[in-house]
């Protein structure tokens, strides 16, 4: 059984804003019936202020799809359309205290329904360029389509490359067979053979200074969130792909420390476009790296 957070369960058992919405003037229908998840998001938008005065949903899907839909409607009610469009799938997942990696696509579907509903209100057509494949890396929720596209776009040739570019395979390593298989297929297309002994291509170039600035910036952006919860984070050092931080206050040693570090690592990976490990230092730091913590 999935390891759903209490919040996911609560929103599933008692979904908010479920059912049709009379007078909706923005409707987004997204999802895939073959995958078993589809969602209709209905918005009532005040034309003068462009503010969402009400939001309802109808969902064909699993527990986390229904919970994500419910969370989405709660998040966006009262927002302007532009504010709502800034809501990311991670925001939806965060609102629910996280989703299992296999279920992150439920939050992606929520964000897409929102884009579709806003486009519908504005009289635009929304097209989705995102295609989802079978989940390969369960630690970081990376699917086969993303891996395949990334290999093609960047001419990648090794598992390490794939990890550097997509994060896939950077955790427990159980999916390396699957990644090798995809590599073999794509390399065959360009007339090459997968060579397990090949050296990884160097990570995308970013000067040292630019890289450290980016790390600082990203951590700065996350601080207010941590401070709101009575904690704080400081950058201590950068050592190759290890980013040493110290957690303070409520964050330090708390049960959520692994989750917090996982979140920081996720943002840093996104910002840098390479795989990094966030390592806590200080009295309460765990001995193991945060790649393991993210799996936990």
């Amino acid at each position: 059984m999935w390891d759903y957070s209490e919040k996911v369960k609560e929103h599933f058992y008692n979904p908010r804003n479920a059912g049709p919405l009379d007078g909706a003037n923005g409707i987004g229908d997204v999802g895939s019936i073959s995958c078993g998840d589809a969602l209709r998001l209905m918005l009532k938008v005040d034309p003068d202020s462009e503010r969402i005065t009400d939001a309802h949903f109808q969902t064909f899907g699993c527990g986390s799809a229904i919970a994500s839909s419910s969370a989405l409607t709660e998040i966006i009610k009262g927002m302007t359309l532009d504010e709502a469009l800034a809501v990311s799938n991670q925001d939806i997942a965060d609102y629910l205290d996280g989703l299992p990696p296999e279920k992150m696509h439920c939050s992606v579907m929520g964000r897409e329904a929102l884009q579709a509903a806003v486009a519908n209100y504005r009289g635009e057509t929304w097209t989705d360029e995102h295609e989802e494949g079978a989940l390969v890396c369960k630690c970081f929720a990376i699917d086969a389509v993303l891996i395949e596209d990334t290999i093609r776009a960047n001419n990648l040739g090794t598992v390490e490359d794939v990890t550097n570019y997509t994060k896939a395979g950077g955790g427990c390593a159980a999916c390396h067979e699957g990644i090798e298989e995809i590599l073999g297929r794509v390399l065959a297309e360009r007339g090459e053979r997968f060579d397990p002994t090949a050296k990884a291509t160097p990570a995308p170039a970013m000067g040292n200074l630019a890289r450290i600035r980016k790390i600082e910036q990203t951590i700065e952006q996350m601080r207010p969130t941590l401070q709101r919860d009575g904690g704080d984070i400081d950058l201590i050092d950068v050592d190759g792909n290890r980013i040493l931080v110290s957690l303070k206050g409520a964050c330090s040693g708390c049960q959520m420390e692994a989750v917090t570090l996982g979140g920081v690592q996720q943002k840093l990976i996104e910002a840098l476009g390479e795989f990094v490990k966030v390592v806590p230092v200080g009295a309460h730091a765990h001995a193991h790296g945060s790649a393991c913590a993210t799996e936990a």
Partner: protein
Amino acid sequence: MGPIYLDNNATTQCDPRVIDAMMPYFTEQFGNPSSMHSFGNKVGLAVKKARAQVQTLIGAEHDSEVIFTSCGTESDSTAILSALRAQPERKEIITSTVEHPAVLSLAEHLEKEGYTVHRIGVDGQGRIDLDAYRAKLSPNVAIASFMWANNETGTIFPVERMAEMAHEAGVMFHTDAVQAVGKLPIDLRNTRIDMLSLSGHKLHAPKGIGVLYLKRSTRFRPLLRGGHQERGRRAGTENVPAIVGLGVAAELALEHMAFENTTVKRMRDQLQDGILAQVPNAFATGDVDNRLPNTANIAFEYIEGEAILLLLNKEGIAASSGSACTSGSLEPSHVMRAMGIPYTAAHGTVRFSLSRHTRDCEIERVIQAVPPIVARLRKLSPYWAGDRPLAEPEKAFAPSYA
């Protein structure tokens, strides 16, 4: 009232008599059955007894045809890989589209290694296409492997007849009978079945024990080589407590065979009829006239299975589903897809599988619990309006792919 377990095709509770029989083999009877001293001797006799008990349950002619393994999956792999290694000139395999992953994943892997896999399809009720099967039998085929009963729908394949057909074409026949053993009478001595897999934990024995039945004189190559255990056909020290447990479980299964096919079957029918009488847009999947006595698989249209399971679980009822979400895959159950069940129903399939421990009062409680759960989820469904689906539901709600 306690929780209700209707997921016996996933696994069963160990019978207390099985556990009692096992206990001494963790403590005083700890010897290695291969040892010469008295510690080993008694244990060796216990293994011999268990082998005879399993032999009786499946109607094997000789006790040496029973090879203990670690699980059903190991038995399946051993059987198929043995056929390929013993007949290296034969590069084809025949199986069905609805097999358990223990066979299908292996077949897919063998395909990558250069073997040809013929997957025989089924009709809307999950019945195998025998003409298509016959057409693929040839001297190029190393093994035909078909499940005796389907784990999701309980649909029974005519494996005895299929084994005859294979035999006529000079092809070895294996059946994954993990769901059938203990629920259906089996008499292997009077069949042409060369190999059969069974799994202890499906018949109230513990997990971690399986059997490969290997008809005498069937050409065989072991999967695990090493010591002389199981006459050199499956090396590795015997899992004695589990073997003893499986022996007792086999004897109990035989004792309860009539009960399974009368009382359990009646409860299953009541459950299915009771639910279908109250819930619109729902139907039983599979070959309902020719299936395991304990299994009912019901498709609830326009809602999704995991959501149903979560709400059932909240009421203390355990079942399982063929939805994509319950497995973490992108597609609903391959069994439902093979039968051509539309996506709007395939994702909403729920399998109820009973056992001899199921009680009438439990069935009544499930019949009461299911309709409100289905109604509650349909209220959330974009395909549903009021008390019925939208007219032309797939047109009324046609989401853009995301």
